[in-house]
């Protein structure tokens, strides 16, 4: 038998050989396409391009950037604790190394940049129609600029790679300066804007537009004009401008870039003129549930049937609805929601302290699930404990028969391990009509929206002391939110910063804003606080008997901006004081691979 097999095999080989060894054995792989085939066919080239878009990631993963700043507390931890407590090092970067932050990380971004470089190196020679080629080329320029802008926000200046490396090349390369990095991103965004259309139709909606490229440019120029990158003297040019810049010119460039997006005339605020506060709250909430709107400049869509990691309703919903708690808003943020009349909320004001959730900025009601907030009907098995479908985050309801905790707390009879500590849950991005326990919602993630452009424009205008322009932009947002206009005055910058905090809450902005404004040492060193609510009542079922509400804030998580661990490797030659945590550490493995990489100060 064995002999037979050998003979058969030998015969086969001879037969194959007769056919010409090279032709037969040098086959085209059946599961992938060679470069020539991809760039000869617009569909294949587009498929390759589509895959690069995946590198944009999104902000609706179970773990959100909001939990690494003074917006939320992540009860699932996932090593977020060592970021908000300033304990990260280049060897232990905590949650930053979580795969769900790939869009902010070194390796994944460079993989995507390589894809974009491959695309750009072939597209000019592609053999299909020029209109498609130009559009796709614009998209690739945009994507490359976007990846670099995320690296810039996290690390400062980074190596600017435009070539496609092959095997056995020298891969060591030094970081470019912050200035070179900004100039490169802006140039790429300009190239993209020149090639991209204003809008798309049908299945192409969601691709990068001219507006997206200009919005990216506006964001990057606003960052570049900010305090963080203009410290003097500059410690290392990877992190700031090496020479003193004309700040007014930088702000002017930022303002002009925002103006360019406004001048396109295709974007406007979603439902800009609400009739009353209730309508304003609904409008603001609905903005994030729309598949598309006139406010959206670039967003990522999801299908509930596909797992792209976006399950915001399940991941962040209250435990009393069989959902996971997740990223829970903290009192630090809650207190920054102004009163409906525009005044500051103040715990020392007895009226405020007695009813902290009354008469607040309408966006509060659309962003935060708080004790007493109407929500959807309870799941069938919880209905007997709460027939109203109202959020319960009180700690202690003293009844005739004893003390019970709210259904949405850690003292709940329902899945208490998913209960939050702060007394708040995420409301923004969550559609109450969907049963989050079982069904994924399809809300998009918005990368750029028109409100950010108005805010960018306002910030640059304030810094240029062009207050009229600033108020004009800001008050469009205020009116949409159902809030009174802001006015000129010495507090305008602080009011603007608070406005941006509230309007853009949980949208991956605050983490960077507190750094570039250099207010992080103050705001990120404050402990995360939550609310302790106690009350009395006849029993847990009859809300009409509940009374004597008392609200007391309490620390739920220690936080720090810098500590000794963070300063472990601090370079004494660096006079950029308190640098730790302004920039994220480059992973140790990357430093090992590329001996020319310089670490950020403080790690």
């Amino acid at each position, binding site marked *: 038998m064995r002999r037979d097999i050998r003979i058969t095999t030998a015969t086969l080989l001879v037969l194959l050989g007769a056919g010409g060894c090279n032709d037969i054995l040098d086959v085209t792989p059946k599961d992938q396409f060679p470069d020539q085939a991809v760039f000869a066919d617009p569909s294949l080239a587009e498929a390759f391009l589509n895959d690069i878009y995946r590198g944009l990631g999104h902000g609706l993963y179970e773990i959100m950037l909001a939990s690494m700043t003074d917006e939320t507390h992540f009860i699932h931890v996932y090593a977020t604790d060592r970021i908000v407590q300033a304990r990260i090092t280049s060897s232990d970067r905590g949650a930053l190394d979580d795969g769900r932050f790939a869009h902010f990380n070194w390796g994944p971004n460079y993989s995507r940049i390589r894809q974009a470089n491959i695309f750009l190196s072939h597209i000019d020679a592609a053999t299909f129609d020029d209109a498609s080629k130009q559009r796709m080329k614009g998209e690739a320029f945009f994507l490359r600029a976007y990846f670099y802008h995320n690296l810039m926000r996290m690390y400062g200046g980074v190596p600017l790679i435009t070539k*496609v490396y092959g095997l056995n090349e020298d891969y060591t390369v030094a970081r470019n300066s912050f200035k070179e990095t900004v100039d490169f991103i802006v140039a790429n965004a300009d190239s993209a804007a020149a090639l991209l259309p204003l809008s798309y139709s049908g299945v192409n909606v969601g691709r990068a537009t001219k507006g997206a490229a200009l919005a990216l440019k506006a964001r990057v120029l606003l960052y570049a004009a900010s305090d963080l990158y203009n410290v003097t003297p500059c410690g290392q040019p990877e992190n700031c401008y090496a020479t003193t810049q004309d700040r007014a010119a930088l702000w002017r460039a930022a303002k002009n870039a925002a103006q360019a997006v406004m001048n396109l005339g295709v974007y406007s605020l979603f439902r800009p003129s609400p009739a009353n506060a209730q309508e304003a709250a609904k409008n603001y909430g609905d903005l994030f549930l729309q598949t598309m709107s006139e406010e959206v400049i670039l967003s990522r869509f999801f299908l509930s049937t596909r797992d792209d990691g976006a399950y915001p309703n399940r991941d962040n919903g209250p435990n009393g609805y069989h959902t996971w708690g997740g990223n829970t808003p903290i009192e630090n943020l809650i207190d920054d929601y102004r009163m409906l009349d525009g005044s500051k909320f103040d715990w020392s004001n007895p009226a405020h302290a007695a009813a902290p959730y009354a008469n607040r900025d309408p966006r509060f009601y659309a962003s935060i699930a708080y004790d007493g907030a109407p929500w959807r009907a309870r799941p069938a098995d919880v209905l007997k404990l709460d027939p109203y479908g109202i959020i319960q985050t009180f700690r202690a309801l003293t009844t005739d028969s004893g003390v019970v905790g709210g259904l949405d707390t850690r003292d709940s009879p329902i899945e208490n391990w998913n209960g939050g500590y702060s007394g708040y849950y995420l409301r923004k991005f969550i559609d109450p009509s969907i049963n989050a326990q079982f069904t994924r919602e399809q809300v998009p993630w918005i990368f750029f929206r028109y409100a950010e452009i108005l805010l960018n424009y306002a910030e640059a205008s304030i810094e240029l002391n062009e207050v009229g322009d600033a108020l004009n932009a800001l008050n469009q947002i205020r009116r949409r939110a159902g809030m009174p206009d802001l006015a000129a005055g010495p507090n305008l910058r602080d009011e603007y910063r608070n406005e941006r905090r509230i309007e853009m809450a949980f949208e991956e902005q605050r983490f960077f804003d507190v750094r570039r404004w250099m207010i992080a040492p103050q705001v990120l060193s404050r402990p995360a606080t939550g609310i302790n609510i106690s009350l009395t009542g006849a029993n847990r079922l009859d809300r009409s008997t509940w009374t004597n509400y008392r609200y007391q804030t309490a620390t739920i998580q220690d936080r720090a901006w810098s500590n000794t661990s963070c300063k472990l490797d601090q370079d004494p030659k660096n006079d950029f004081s308190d640098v730790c945590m302004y920039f994220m550490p480059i992973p140790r493995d990357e430093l090992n691979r590329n001996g020319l990489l310089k670490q950020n100060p403080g790690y």
Partner: protein
Amino acid sequence: MHELDGRPPRHHFRAGGSKRATRGVARTQRQRRPEPFATGSQQVAGDVSYDVTFNFGHARNRINYWDEPPGAPPWQRSTGHPMCVSVTSCPAGGLLYKAIGIFKDSADLARYCHRTDARPGDIIFADIDGDCKITANDRIRIDQNGNPTYTLGLRLGAQVKKFDFTVFFQGAFDAVQYFITESGEIGNFTQEFAANRWTPTNPNAPGPRAFNRQEEYWVSNANTYFLRDASYIRLKSVEIGYHAPARLAAGLGLHDVRLYANGYNLLLLDQFQVVDPETRDSNGQYYPQQRVFNVGATVTF
């Protein structure tokens, strides 16, 4: 495809053969190294016949060449080592901190180079590169993973008159599994962890302090403390059968009746103890293998 176009492939592996061997013909003679093989023997002696089948597999792989980025410390390089075949069987890409004990107290803390956030009750990570800082360069490469190097099966069968017996053993050796539960505010610890845990009043405990989720550095940074020996021998199945007398079967209008009883997963010898050694989930979230008993009859018409 782009990387490969017209160039040698990135990986050259030397495989030691498949893990599963077929029963029957031995086919190892021309191999240089121990290879999967199976051997069998059947004997008949009067009313008694018995058979023995044994199979044994040896599977190893080694990365002979790939374009591994330079710069990693020599003790972390993967060239020349087995490849990580899957994330689940090979935690943290095979790079783990080396756990060398538990900090008993603050005096103990002072005796070792340690992380600045280390406290008594934490796991001691070895300072491999000797710079007195515990960094990612101190991780070591672990060659073992969830795929056992050796697998074996042993089947013993016997027929005595109308009775037949079958016993089957299965085993795997030289395998490891990472195991740490999600514990603290989300749920409990294993009894083993609780019993071994360090407390201020039990500073000589063999294990670290209780923890919450990933809040300790030795939870979020994979280390050898949680690496378990996943070798085992299992009595996979036992069966006893009895053929009813032909007369009785014929009386019922049947050709043959065989009554049998069998059981699966009857016995397990392992070091792991806490969860099944065949689990490949580092949190132990694995549906356990069940012990199953069957009683039945095989009827031939």
